[in-house]
């Protein structure tokens, strides 16, 4: 059962809820985050927003609640998550025993350097490693790391201004897709963005108020063998319209894996309707699977997510999400569908509670039911 825990867990970088985009009146993710495409450690503007606008009871969103003032060129943070999960996959051996476990423990730091350069890194723990010792199946031996320490992200950035060009190099997820926090969604898990699958990248891009462009070349970690095993490139272009209430994006990803090359063309959209405090969003990706073997040839896959998030009162998000992953468009029953409900509450700055309900329907197979409750605190 402990495997379930590891599988269900492993959070994304904290604070990276794409639902904040547009719904807060902000169009660009890097208005609150240090990363050009959002995610990870938040900047002083993001901390102020956390304290004043995003939490129900408001407070001080600064590092350590404002007890310690850091120099402006240096920022640190941490994310701690604990969770309870109950999962029913109709497993006669493991049943549905609830499990409580630590979900994330990461430290994050960012240092600004002269001339628009900066360094960013995280250090935390990963859930499962190969055990130490001399017993390894000979055929499956690879020189891999047995350390439980993991740096999900470490990168160097050149970005002279928050608007304009940037170049980034290091380990992180290439800008792609809706970037939902939940890695179990098909648009993350099945498109190369599952938990701990960050790749080594070189990105170049341009940010403007109305649009942004990110181009990334990526490769796997050949030393530790942790993360994506593919190599290729990613392109993402987003256009924002109507005073940052609508965002439309096109994206592509070409990845060379073992036995198959994957070429993705996708579109996504977000629309915020202020009168009903609701954000509508959707992503559809067409995946061309080009197998090395002529016996198989080329097949088509479709992965999609669509849903809405309502913000009924300050600090509360209610999200409904539908998903579809059809492994082969020519075979109707080679698919999963899923329905999710998320309740996120940010009562005070630095604090979050999340409840997740998920139903997953493999065509012709056994339904999987998941309930997850997590508490999240970040410095």
């Amino acid at each position, binding site marked *: *059962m402990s*495997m*379930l825990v*590891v*599988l*269900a867990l492993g959070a994304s970088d904290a604070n990276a809820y794409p639902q904040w985009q547009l719904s807060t009146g902000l169009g660009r993710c890097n208005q609150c985050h240090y990363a050009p495409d959002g995610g990870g450690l938040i900047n002083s503007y993001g901390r102020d927003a956390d304290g004043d606008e995003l939490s129900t009871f408001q407070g001080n969103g600064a590092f350590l609640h404002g007890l310690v003032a850091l120099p402006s060129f240096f920022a640190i943070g941490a994310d701690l998550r604990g969770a309870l999960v109950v*999962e029913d*996959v*109709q*497993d*006669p*051996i*493991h049943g549905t025993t609830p499990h409580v476990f630590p979900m994330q423990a990461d430290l994050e730091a960012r240092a600004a350097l002269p001339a628009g350069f900066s360094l960013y890194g995280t250090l935390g723990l*990963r859930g*499962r490693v*190969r055990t*130490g*010792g*001399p*017993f*390894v*199946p*000979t*055929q*499956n*031996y690879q*020189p*891999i*790391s047995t350390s439980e320490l993991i740096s999900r992200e470490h990168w160097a950035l050149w970005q002279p201004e928050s608007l304009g060009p940037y170049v980034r190099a290091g380990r992180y997820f290439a800008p792609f897709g809706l970037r939902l926090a939940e890695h179990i969604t098909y648009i993350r898990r*099945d498109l190369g963005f*599952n*938990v701990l699958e960050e790749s080594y990248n070189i990105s170049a891009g341009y940010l403007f108020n109305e649009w942004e462009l990110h181009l990334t070349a990526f490769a796997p970690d050949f030393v530790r063998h*942790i993360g994506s*095993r593919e190599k290729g490139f990613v392109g993402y272009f987003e256009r924002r319209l109507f005073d940052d209430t609508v965002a439309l994006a*096109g994206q592509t990803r070409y990845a060379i*894996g*073992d036995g198959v090359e994957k070429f993705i063309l996708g*579109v996504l959209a977000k629309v915020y309707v202020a009168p009903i405090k609701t954000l509508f969003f959707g992503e*559809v990706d*067409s995946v061309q699977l080009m*197998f090395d073997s002529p*016996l198989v040839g080329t*097949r088509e896959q*479709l992965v*999609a997510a*669509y849903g809405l998030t309502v913000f009924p009162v300050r600090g509360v998000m209610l999200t409904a999400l539908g998903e*579809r992953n059809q492994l*082969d*468009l*020519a*075979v*109707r*029953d*080679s698919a999963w569908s899923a329905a999710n409900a998320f309740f996120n509450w940010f009562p005070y700055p630095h604090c979050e509670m999340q409840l997740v309900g998920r139903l*997953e329907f*493999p*065509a*012709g*197979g056994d339904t*999987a039911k998941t309930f997850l409750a997590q508490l999240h605190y970040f410095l």
Partner: protein
Amino acid sequence: MLKSLVPTVAAIALTCSMGCGSSADDRPAVWEYISPAIFQPNCATVSCHSPAAAVAGLDFSTMDHGYTSLTSLWVWIVDMNGTAEMGCRKVNGTTVCQKGSRPLVTPYDPSQSLIVHMLRAQGAARMPPDRPLPEADIELVEKWILNGATWAGRSPFDAGGGPSPGGEDAGDGSAEATNLDGGAADHAGASSDGVVDAPDAR
């Protein structure tokens, strides 16, 4: 080009959001498809059967490692009668030898293949443990087994020879104690009968 692509993708999405395609499965039942399309994305996640974790010694991240994991994995098993000439060695005073484990597939017989029992959660722990596979994918695996579970000139029947004496060491101390005998592979990584848990060599 983008102007034509966007409506095309949107049309496909609308059409297929409730399911499209045929009820007939024309996919080839070969490892060249099953590994990259089914086993790698579903089983080789970082914390499971990837090189980084290789839970139960199984690594499905490549066609080669995946095929080996299913058909011919060797494991270190306690054997007090083992000798160095047999490729055995002492670890913390205990003699261990590499021996072939029970393959997860039984060629030509899906009903006797442990991997099928796991995919269906029939008398074995569910695999993948967080999301059952669509029936069509399981049936494709069964069809491959029914056809002999071969790949690139290899067959599960090739596994009988076992490792050469003094098999390759895990040079950096990384390892996984594994025994698939006697039922489901213990996906929690603990040892089953006959296998000594590896001491931490770091």
